[in-house]
């Protein structure tokens, strides 16, 4: 038996430690992992727990991220609790197996410590890796700080392992800004944390020797569409109620409330910024300052990226006159992902808010309060004019002549 770790009610943890502690507390059976900045400390912390008797699962340090997820898939299909962590290039190397994990309906948990994708090589935080895997069939949560990175891992296991769901879940957090920035994190005791998730209940497990199963079959035009359609249907219809139930249960246990879409000062907001990761907290602070100046400013944070919360998003912007979508990934020749998702969601909604997009913060460039103030100034002008007063897409915080398109 692994030793119990005595934790203070509030520990000073960065996002990587928060994620590693959550993995320890749910007693993951197999972690197959490979180190990469900035997710390396998740794996190192976990190795440390193992070396000191706090883990009795298997820890397999493989030779690449592709092998990490391959090992996770084999272990998960065998029938037990499985998790790993990665970032950026490692995530990119994993992409093939991300689709295989979700298509095989395996409840693996992947902590993604978001980082820019080369080239040029960059170790800092942006959402390029997150965007790369957005259609991979995984449920995807976004944490804005270490506390959330901790909490959302428990919710992730609870949702993923539900037999009506059986889909893998990613918990995203911003590289360095969350992963390496220590904050106070309210903890659960080992017992309470484990009991929230519960014992792993295997299904179609290869290790049930009396009931052999075949995993990872071939389907061509005769069955492939039906499999993909069923997975999509489950993502669209079954997952949100399970996430909501898990959020409710977690709130009842801890008092910490999570929402599928996080709305800050949105009840009467006329201008709103939509973003993810650490940017949400900065935007909330700036919105409050805007409100002190008489601007009805709000912020919407995307908590569940996949499945995309179509209905909740449509509701969030009722009464809003101008919206800015902030994308922390180069769209490389298109509007940003958040812009496009919002446009698709709001096109048939009651709102006729003006929607503009901003690309910011690539490769770990700061999103400053002054940039957000400028965005709110643009939004106020858009709201007054009832149409865009700027280009639909602006790159902000980048040196050189102003880059704006569309």
């Amino acid at each position, binding site marked *: 038996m692994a030793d119990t770790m005595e934790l203070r009610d509030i520990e000073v943890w960065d996002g990587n430690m928060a994620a590693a502690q959550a993995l320890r507390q749910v007693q993951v059976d197999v972690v197959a992992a490979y180190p990469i900045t900035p997710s390396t400390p998740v794996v190192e912390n976990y190795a440390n727990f193992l070396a000191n008797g706090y883990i009795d699962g298997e820890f397999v340090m493989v030779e690449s991220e592709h092998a990490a997820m391959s090992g996770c898939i084999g272990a998960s299909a065998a029938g037990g609790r499985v998790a790993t962590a990665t970032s950026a290039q490692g995530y990119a190397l994993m992409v093939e197996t991300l689709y295989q994990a979700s298509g095989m309906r395996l409840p693996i948990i992947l902590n993604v410590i978001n980082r820019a994708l080369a080239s040029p090589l960059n170790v800092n935080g942006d959402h390029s890796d997150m965007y790369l895997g957005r259609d991979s069939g995984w449920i995807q949560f976004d944490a804005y700080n270490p506390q959330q990175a901790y909490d959302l891992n428990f919710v992730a296991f609870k949702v993923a392992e539900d037999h009506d769901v059986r889909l893998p879940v990613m918990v995203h957090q911003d590289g360095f800004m969350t992963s390496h920035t220590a904050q106070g994190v309210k903890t659960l005791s080992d017992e309470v944390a484990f009991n929230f998730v519960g014992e792993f209940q295997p299904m179609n497990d290869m*290790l049930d020797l*009396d009931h052999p199963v075949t995993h990872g079959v*071939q389907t061509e035009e005769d069955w492939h569409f039906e499999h993909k359609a069923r997975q999509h249907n489950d993502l669209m219809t079954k997952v949100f109620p399970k996430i909501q139930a898990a959020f409710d249960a977690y709130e009842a246990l801890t008092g910490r409330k999570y929402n599928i879409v996080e709305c800050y000062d949105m009840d009467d907001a006329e201008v709103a910024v939509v973003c993810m990761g650490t940017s949400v907290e900065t935007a909330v602070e700036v919105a409050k300052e805007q409100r002190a100046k008489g601007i009805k400013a709000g912020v919407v944070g995307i908590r569940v990226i996949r499945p995309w919360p179509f209905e909740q998003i449509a509701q969030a912007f009722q009464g809003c006159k101008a919206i800015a979508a902030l994308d922390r990934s180069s769209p490389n020749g298109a509007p940003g992902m958040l812009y496009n998702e919002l446009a698709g969601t709001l096109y048939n909604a009651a709102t006729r808010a003006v929607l503009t997009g901003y690309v910011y913060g690539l490769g770990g460039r700061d999103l400053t309060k002054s940039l957000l103030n400028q965005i709110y100034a643009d939004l106020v002008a858009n709201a007054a004019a009832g149409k865009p007063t700027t280009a639909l897409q602006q790159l902000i915080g980048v040196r050189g002549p102003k880059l704006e398109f569309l």
Partner: protein
Amino acid sequence: MSEMKNIKNLKEFSTSADRFEGANLLCPGCAHSIIVREVLNATNDDLILSAATGCLEVCTAVYPYTSWDASWIHIGFENASTAIAGAEAMHKALKRKGRLKQERDPKFVAFGGDGATYDIGFQWLSGCFERGHNMMYVCLDNEVYANTGGQRSSSTPIGASATTSPAGRVSYGEKMNKKDMLAIMAAHGAPYVAQVAPNKWKDMIKKIQTGFAANGPVYINAMSACTTEWKFLPEDTIAISDMATDSLVFPLYEIIDGTKLNITYRPKTVVPVEEYLAAQGRFKHLFKDEYKYLIKEWQERVDAKWDYLQRREEASV
């Protein structure tokens, strides 16, 4: 403890319970199915299996059917080794935690073609062997990407015509010598590495059973004559296989603990390499006058390798 089968003759073997069903889509005359049955039939223990993308995979698990009466997983082309290593790790974890549904310890076996093994899955295989998973990896070596229509792999021998190294007006086909996977896998320090052939089934069963009894990763290189890409008639699979082993193009040997090499089959009459080549369409062009030197060179290479294997065996290194 492992429970091995004691099979005395082919009739007994053929009536032994199947965990790999004859209902599959492999070509008539495909050696893969013979090899897989021989591997699975070597033990009565439970089996957890994986397969790389390839002929075996696409022909045995086409939804809604499966040919496998043992748990089986396919993920991708390169990671059959790591898939089974992950399952083995889970077994270890659940055993330690007292959560296995049955007390029995299964064997973990991965199958991959030579493309999956020599080429695209090489890193994954090496990683699994370095980490010492308790697993057997069986390479179904037909010296070509057969599933995708006959492209060269790093197992394709020199002079073979493959679709990406075709023989033509100015080319004799594949230019590179076959990679020596057995030496590479032995160099990992694996407890057991062996080359087998389906026609020498007693030798093969013995090796598979030795592999199952070993503690750690075991590599089996199984010569798998391919009627479609080697271009011979389906009914000649065993005859071609006999020529492969008796010409010593595919010598049968084992390497224990990374170093100790034993030759396990010595043909009474050694067949000239030329006869082996002449029996297959993929080498047809080598019999043109301008390429005959390649056949001579090939015979010299086989002789040299056989001499080397014998010297290794004698020296017990």
